[in-house]
């Protein structure tokens, strides 16, 4: 476990907790953006350059902005006087803790944990050119389907959010 991983992991975890607990929704969204940046850093550290940068482009540049706009459009930026957590909050935290306990137990006790670290990964084997080649050959069909999905999602989002015509 290197120092850079420790820093990135701390950044991700702290900002994720902040994103889930802060009262002000805009602060939550900004913390979420920090989480995304930290995750992108983790991806870069793992040698997935293209995906890491795509993560920043899509999540910080688009999804975070989208969330912020939604917060402003639904006027929930200013937290009300009421409770921020639902009635079953304790149960939810309990479930999450249980899930983490199970996952942690599984991870630490699995065969993967005992496997020695693989040899140093050669970054030149995962170039953008190779990645593009894979996308254009093996994964061409999923890519096209994805394009269709994105178009459909865009049209769907526009139609859902479209102001209903005032008929009367």
């Amino acid at each position: 476990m290197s120092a850079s991983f420790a820093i990135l992991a701390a950044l991700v975890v702290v900002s994720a907790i902040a994103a889930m607990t802060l009262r002000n929704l805009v602060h939550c969204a900004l913390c979420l953006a920090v989480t995304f940046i930290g995750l992108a850093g983790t991806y870069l550290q793992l040698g997935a350059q293209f995906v890491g940068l795509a993560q920043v482009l899509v999540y910080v540049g688009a999804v975070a902005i989208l969330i912020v706009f939604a917060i402003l459009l639904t006027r929930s930026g200013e937290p009300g006087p009421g409770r921020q957590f639902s009635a079953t909050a304790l149960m939810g935290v309990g479930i999450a803790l249980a899930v983490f306990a199970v996952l942690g137990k599984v991870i630490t006790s699995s065969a993967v944990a005992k496997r020695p670290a693989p040899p140093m990964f050669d970054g030149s084997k995962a170039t953008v050119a190779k990645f593009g080649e894979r996308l254009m050959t093996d994964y061409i069909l999923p890519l096209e389907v994805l394009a269709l999905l994105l178009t459909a999602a865009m049209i769907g989002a526009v139609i859902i959010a479209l102001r209903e015509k005032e008929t009367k």
Partner: protein
Amino acid sequence: MTELLEQFPVTLKHAILDVLSKFLPEWLLPIASAILSITPILIVFPTIFALTTVVERKVLGRIQNRPGPNRVGIPLTNIRLAGFGQFIADGIKALIKEDIVPRNADKVVHFLAPIAVVIPALLAYSVLPIGKNMTALDLDAGVLFFFAVGSATELSVFMAGWSSRNKYALLGAMRAIAQMVSYELPLVLSTVGVIMMTGTLSTTQIVEAQAGGFWHWHAATPWGFAAFFLFLVAATAEANRTPFDLPEAESEIIAGYFTEYSGFKFALFFLGEYLGLFAMSGLGITLFLGGWHAPLPALEVVPSWIWFFLKLGVFIMFFIWLRGTLPRLRMDQLMNLAWKFMVPLTLITIVAAGVWRFMDPGFTRCLTVTAMIVVPYLLLSNALFTARGVGKRTYRYAD
């Protein structure tokens, strides 16, 4: 001599590193190397920013038939330096001004926003090839890095506008985000042709693909010229320059998202904006104008980094000229231009670039590709001119 000058910054860095290696422990050396690569960026581009503020005001003055700032020189003397001491005076003023934070403002976000504006702008320089072997961070996906970092600016603009608790600031931030999101699409799409032709996202390799005179530059091909033109328009909009300076339209919403900023924080916004502009110009040079390559092979005696900065200077002058000429657009015109004109045309240039790639070189190829771009341009501009909202305005009572 040429060789020495050519690689002077690189050799200097290695010399310093050699000296340092005697004192520093082994694990600190990569960090020292990184710092030595970053420091010139941190010095050179803010200096260009400082000079640009004066040059811009002088050129704008000349465009309006007045001399522009010509007084401030060396303090306590009569030496005026043609007004080029102005930026020092401005800097001192910004530093010692009172920093006002609105009482209702979100203090933490209000404080972080100017920093969050400047950092992505500076990060973007790390992938720009300033000269031969002079790319601070030679990433395999350099262009993607540039756009990813650039898209992070939007959030900081929102932070500034939202945290000020001011309707003008929020309006300005909303305008800025809407504009940046809309123009990011044509900006990225206009670069796709170049990426397709060179087959790489690495800025260094894109520059290397354009070696050997200006006819090898991407802007010298019909599709490249069109893409370059569209890139220029989108870059102007991304950098919030006139005629796309709606986010800070001072006649409508005071100063947009930095209405509530004063003193040094305001200076940071100013710096971030100009750094963004230079970075965008640098990307335009890298992608379309041959990067640090000389326009003629005979001129390669001049060091590569000088060529880069010369081209950057031309870009800056062009942006100032544009600012001195064009009035501001209206919000609906801005959006119409982005979605009805820029996006279709950038898509067409991508197709044109593909056609260029697979046709045999010759006059027919040139003609076909030119026609592929010019005809839709004429049709689109004609349709837009007759359409409501974009075209010429008719006034009911004036005229």
